[in-house]
């Protein structure tokens, strides 16, 4: 490997992970508190000012710092938690999809279904079927770990994705497609 190439591949991610404002541990701990609160009640509304107050920073600063600390904006993080919880309920209960949607913080079943598909690549009904089939295979892994493992990996905004998908008729498969 040439020196130039090596330096380039190392330098690029390093620059990304070391922005000018690198949250200090004390701030990270307070950001974690806001994240914990979303984890505890993802069905609630979490406007940025409410989260920022928990972290004792300004709303504008919070959004930026949260993204730096956890790799995605607070609202996207909240969506992953809601979908994760909905997927668990689909798998573990017989509750109607509409009930699960309302219970996990969505105001309409249409929005729920659309974002669920955008994020997971399958419909709530498909998720329910697949989850039940896989139920036997999991064994002794603690439930909290199972849910974390199955948490959707939301790397790009739902709206971004939808825009990309809609922009071209050529079916460019999203990264989430199996």
């Amino acid at each position, binding site marked *: 490997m040439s020196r130039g190439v090596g330096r380039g591949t190392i330098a690029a991610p390093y620059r990304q992970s070391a922005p000018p404002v690198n949250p200090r*541990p*004390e701030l*990270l*701990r307070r950001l974690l508190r806001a*994240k914990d609160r979303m984890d*505890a009640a993802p069905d609630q509304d979490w406007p940025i000012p409410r989260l920022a107050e928990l972290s004792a920073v300004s709303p504008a600063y919070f959004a930026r710092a949260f993204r730096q600390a956890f790799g995605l904006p607070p609202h996207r993080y909240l969506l992953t938690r809601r979908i994760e919880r909905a997927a668990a309920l689909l798998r573990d209960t017989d509750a109607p999809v509409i009930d699960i949607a309302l219970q996990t913080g969505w105001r309409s079943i249409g929005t729920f279904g659309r974002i669920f598909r955008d994020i997971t690549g399958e419909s709530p009904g498909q998720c329910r079927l697949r989850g039940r089939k896989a139920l036997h295979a999991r064994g002794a892994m603690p439930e*909290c770990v199972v849910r974390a493992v199955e948490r959707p990996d939301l790397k790009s905004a739902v709206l971004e994705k939808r825009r990309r998908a809609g922009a071209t008729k050529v079916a460019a498969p999203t990264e989430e497609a199996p």
Partner: protein
Amino acid sequence: MSEGIEVVGIYVRDQDEALAFYVDRLGFRVQADVRNGDYRWLTVQHPQQPTLQLGLFRPGPPVHDAATAEALHGLVAKGAMPPLVLQVKDCRAAYQALSAKGVEFIQEPISRYGQVDAGFRDPSGNGWKMIERQRKETA
């Protein structure tokens, strides 16, 4: 004497603060508190589990350079360290008792899959699950 795990350590941001938390709030006991210059070897243990020590270690010299220590502090503070599990006889009672002592719970007790579990963090950001396992009916 049997063989087994003797010490497992976690990183904390401040050893005095961690000591106060694990001893005064969780009810652990100090097992070792030894200083050597700036270095402090600090372990606690659960009163009912004298064979296992939980090390409360602060990232820093002489073990870590400044940048590594800062990175470790950051990881702990954003909750990225592995989960810890505390087994209790009565999760809801323990939740009440620890909440009253000011422990920061991140999940209230939930009954599911034959157990009751709750979650809390230590001041540094280390996450604990507190689990009450349901007694299996003896066959």
